[in-house]
């Protein structure tokens, strides 16, 4: 069972929720798809880390074979190639790795070379298997890392996997939720939070993902995120109070459910609700 945790707005508590739910689940997996700014590993402090590089393929040219026909230059939709004074110039930063130029070259002058863009670390923390994707600074797109993180982790039946997603609603978020069975939207009771909740709410519905909301940082009084859920009939899976102790633990990268009985109870109860809802939704709404 793969459960994606997303929010639209940054800082609402995706990592708090995904890390703690994974921590209280028996035999679970945590996958950090926020490859630009991964945080989960700071909480789990995983051991026995195995690391694997992630790379993309980009073209390289054998100048002896290149006839200067410029088929590749004319084809490239990203303008990553130029031909000047009988030399092919390749702009690696702009190349989108589509492989088109290599396929089209009639002289076989273009071949592929790899360019490392980041890495994946796999480790363990008590009963949790922790996967972390890390994009190298200066690289523009983490999509290949997210793809690799998720492709290589085909879900096991008994295992629950929580996917910690990046903020926003762009292609990297879509990539992170693509194969999820269920989406948890984490909302905070602020003007910005609700506006962005609306966006990811639209996103999960566009992709037909069963979903529910966890209201985080709840205070007394009116909660605009809760009102949003009520108005739109979105299931509210649970409420996490705005709490200085919880904030403090989180700020120090401690897993609240492992540090304190109170939060263990809170997150266990939330997990139970989530799993019940997930099982219910995925039975009546099978994705596969």
């Amino acid at each position, binding site marked *: 069972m793969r459960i994606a945790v997303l929010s639209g707005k940054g800082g609402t508590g995706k990592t708090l929720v995904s890390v703690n739910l994974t921590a209280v689940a028996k035999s679970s997996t945590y996958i950090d798809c926020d490859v630009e700014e991964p945080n989960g590993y700071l909480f789990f402090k995983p051991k026995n880390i195995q690391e694997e590089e992630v790379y993309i393929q980009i073209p390289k040219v054998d100048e002896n074979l290149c006839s200067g026909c410029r088929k590749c230059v004319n084809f490239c939709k990203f303008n990553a190639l130029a031909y000047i004074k009988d030399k092919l110039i390749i702009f690696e*930063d*702009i190349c989108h790795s589509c492989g088109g130029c290599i396929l089209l070259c009639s002289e076989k002058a273009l071949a592929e070379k790899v360019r490392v863009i980041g890495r994946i670390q796999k480790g363990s923390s008590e009963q949790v298997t922790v996967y972390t994707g890390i994009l190298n600074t200066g690289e523009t797109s983490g999509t290949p890392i997210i793809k690799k993180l998720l492709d290589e982790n085909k879900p096991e039946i008994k295992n629950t996997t929580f996917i910690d997603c990046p903020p926003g609603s762009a292609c990297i978020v879509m990539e992170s939720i693509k194969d999820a069975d269920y989406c948890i939207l984490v909302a905070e009771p602020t003007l910005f939070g609700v506006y962005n909740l609306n966006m990811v709410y639209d996103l999960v519905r566009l992709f037909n993902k069963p979903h529910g909301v966890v209201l985080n940082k709840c205070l007394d009084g009116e909660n605009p995120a809760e009102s949003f859920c009520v108005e739109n009939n979105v299931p509210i899976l649970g409420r996490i109070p705005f709490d200085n102790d919880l904030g403090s633990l989180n700020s120090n990268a401690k897993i609240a459910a492992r540090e304190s009985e109170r939060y263990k109870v809170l997150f266990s109860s939330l997990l139970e609700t989530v799993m019940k809802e997930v099982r219910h939704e995925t039975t009546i709404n099978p994705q596969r």
Partner: protein
Amino acid sequence: MKITIPVDEKSLNSNVCVSFGRTPYFLIYDTDTKKSVFLDNSAAASTGGAGIKAAQMIADNQVNILLTPRLGENAADVLKSAEIEIYKTTTASAKDNIDDFIAGKLPLLKEIHAGFHGHGGK
């Protein structure tokens, strides 16, 4: 020699365009024949790498000198390979810049910006 300058309109009285890669037209002035032609800039419609494509186009047109207010690093790489010299425009009028260049008044363009899709300078 051939001098090119990005322009907003297909007119000798046009202003210089602030963007190199996405200028609608390039004016090419030949100092020998004293004739001007205008090139439509197909790179303007590109979603990315516009500077590279525009630079390729002016290199293909055997231009020797580029006058421009600014330039990104990828386009600059292409132009350097093509051995095209780059000077900085100082006023709004394309014609004035060409005259100023011929009179030796324009400075070389030193500040190449990071480009919109690439990373910063080294």
